[in-house]
């Protein structure tokens, strides 16, 4: 008797009459089996939820809850686990189970489940077929019978692997307790490959939410120094830092360079009017971190006034390597937007001499591309320069209008 009681209190799914050991599993089952959108496979929480989802997102009407018994397909009844089941159905279910069990001896229950009967059918047995003892199913689910197609009966368990909505993102992200440790270390291993900023910066900042202590961090802008000093690889353009790849199976749709889309866009020649910001980023940290390529590029730039060709070449080399793709993109984009030149870049000429200043050494990749690109090729048809299209923006290397570095 006691055991029967236990069985009766087992949660069951209103939509398919299946029983579960645990309401949690039942809810997972319902989400996977009955509340899953057939179009985008999103798992909703209730039947009405599914119907609203389909209506709003896919503009489709759902008139039946998927995989439900014919008389239980109502999408308007809000059922979540055992909540919301019409009282009449609850009673019927109980009665039915009793009548099913009655004939079967009570010890039939347990073996039945272990014995793995052809449960695949039973699972969907309509309530009108009491003889098929739906209750026996449950254990069968937990210990899957060998012959069972996993996709089918194991469904209720499956959500473990793929929790709904936002949850998938969470486990890999930040186990909260990890974040709580006070060393700077713990958060990092979570994204080992990812932290593009230098260790000094990270070290100073420490744990994420540590209140700032003194001005220590301010003196160490992290992202800037590291890449320069570390970019020893020969022909590579020194990068300010690039966006880490995420792996082979995924791709971040973003230019390689780790600066904002706005900064990249601002380099387009049409936005070059009177802006000189590209050179001055990181004015504070611009000291001695330059690579040889950089100085070459810089000196090349300085000579630009005299030898245009040399510059173009030097730049072509620089640019070609890493910025090819990006610039190509820009070229295309620029082609689509009419280049708007409001006037000659007035500040340019005055700016040019400053180039020779010592701070030039710090010019980093984006800057190389940047300033050179910024001035529209006034008076110089791009075709004149025999350069890959991507370099076009570099072309306007007219003497005197190359760049107007303010801070470097």
């Amino acid at each position: 008797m006691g055991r029967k009681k236990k069985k009766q209190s087992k949660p069951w799914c209103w939509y398919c009459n299946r029983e579960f050991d645990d309401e949690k599993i039942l809810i997972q089952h319902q989400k996977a089996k009955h509340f899953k959108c057939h179009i985008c496979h999103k798992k909703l929480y209730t039947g009405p939820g599914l119907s609203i989802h389909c209506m709003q997102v896919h503009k489709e009407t759902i008139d039946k809850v998927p995989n439900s018994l014919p008389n239980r397909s109502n999408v308007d009844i809000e059922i979540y686990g055992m909540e919301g089941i019409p009282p009449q159905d609850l009673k019927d279910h109980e009665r039915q189970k009793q009548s099913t069990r009655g004939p079967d001896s009570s010890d039939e229950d347990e073996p039945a489940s272990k014995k793995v009967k052809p449960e695949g059918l039973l699972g969907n047995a309509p309530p009108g077929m009491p003889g098929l003892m739906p209750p026996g199913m449950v254990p069968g689910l937990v210990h899957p019978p060998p012959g069972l197609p996993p996709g089918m009966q194991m469904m209720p368990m499956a959500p473990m692997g793929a929790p709904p909505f936002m949850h998938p993102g969470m486990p890999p992200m930040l186990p909260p307790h990890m974040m709580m440790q006070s060393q700077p270390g713990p958060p990092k291993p979570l994204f080992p490959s990812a932290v593009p900023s230098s260790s000094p910066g990270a070290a100073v900042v420490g744990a994420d939410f540590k209140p700032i202590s003194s001005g220590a961090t301010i003196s160490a802008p992290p992202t800037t120094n590291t890449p320069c000093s570390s970019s020893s690889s020969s022909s590579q353009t020194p990068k300010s830092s690039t966006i880490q790849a995420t792996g082979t199976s995924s791709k971040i749709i973003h230019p390689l360079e780790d600066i904002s889309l706005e900064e990249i866009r601002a380099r387009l020649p049409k936005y070059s009017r009177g802006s000189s910001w590209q050179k001055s980023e990181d004015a504070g940290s611009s000291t001695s971190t330059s690579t040889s390529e950089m100085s070459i590029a810089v000196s090349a730039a300085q000579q630009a006034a005299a030898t245009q060709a040399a510059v173009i070449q030097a730049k072509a080399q620089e640019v070609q390597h890493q910025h090819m793709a990006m610039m190509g993109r820009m070229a295309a984009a620029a082609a689509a937007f009419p280049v708007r030149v409001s006037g000659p870049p007035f500040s340019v000429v005055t700016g040019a001499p400053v180039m020779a200043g010592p701070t030039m050494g710090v010019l980093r990749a984006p800057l190389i591309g940047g300033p050179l690109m910024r001035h529209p090729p006034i008076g110089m048809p791009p075709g004149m320069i025999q350069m890959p299209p991507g370099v076009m923006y570099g072309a306007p290397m007219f003497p005197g209008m190359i760049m107007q570095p303010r801070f470097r």
Partner: protein
Amino acid sequence: MMKSQAEYKLKSPPDDAISSVKFGPNTNQFLLVSSWDSYVRLYDVTANNLRQKYSHENAVLDCCFTDAVHSYSGGLDNTLKSFDFNTATESVIGTHANPIKCVEYCNELNCVLTGSWDHHVKLWDLRTSGASGNYNQSERVYSMDTCGEKLLVATAGRKVLVWDIRNMAYALQKRETSLKYQTRAIKAFPNKLGFVLSSIEGRVAVEYLDSNPEIQKKKYAFKCHRIKEDGLEKIYPVNAVSFHPIHNTFATGGSDGYVNVWDGFNKKRLCQFHQYLTSVTSLSFSHNGSVLAIGCSYFLEEDKPPSSLPEDTIYIRSVTDQETKPKYSSNS
């Protein structure tokens, strides 16, 4: 239920990428739009027409209302301008050394804050002229938001600084973001408990301001704005975040062209709108949360840009409680 006629395009949109859309403080009617075409425009979204516009010397990167008839804006010309829509007069308020990326208004203290790629935030007290303060953020400012009397600044190098606007002598907090990629946007919860950060790597973090470890435990992040195509998962920048002013839920817009609405406290997605033609660059809920403005512009994210660039478009979408209200309001 919801039909797509709840959404329409604004007429006479900007001629270049849309950098920011912002609804007026107490209206569903007026929308301020800044664009890379160097104009700031005021739209009447109810009548669907362009009311006024004024220009900068160069692309405008951000704008904000300070009250129903005054706007502030800044951009690549390094200049903060204000405009009075009643008198149609503009004035130059001040400049940064580098382009101004963010312009925010703090209602509590009646001041405007600008964040720039010159690593500084400037505070502009509207009662006086000129900048009242210039504060080093040690990196380029990428995104900013006010949170009551606090200012949240997200910079390059994945840093977040929290300031008390009443006392900008020091930063209250300086954090590294919990996201491992460049920050795109930061927005405070209307209930001021925390903020949402989005990154270029299809991910959004929900963080809390209170540094109490118990509270900090609740922070989390989740993936979004990703599209699987032939086994390759394309991960898009999440460019825009806008909070529903009442429900504390928020919409995110990505370069995948989708807008999702999330319930950050219950970790649920409430809905996803249809895919827009190109990247969603800016979002703004109106003051009562009944309308969402969606700015769409292609933003050079891809290696190979589409052959014909999609138009710059602003969509005005009526949203329902169903789309924006937490389903299970465990906390109201």
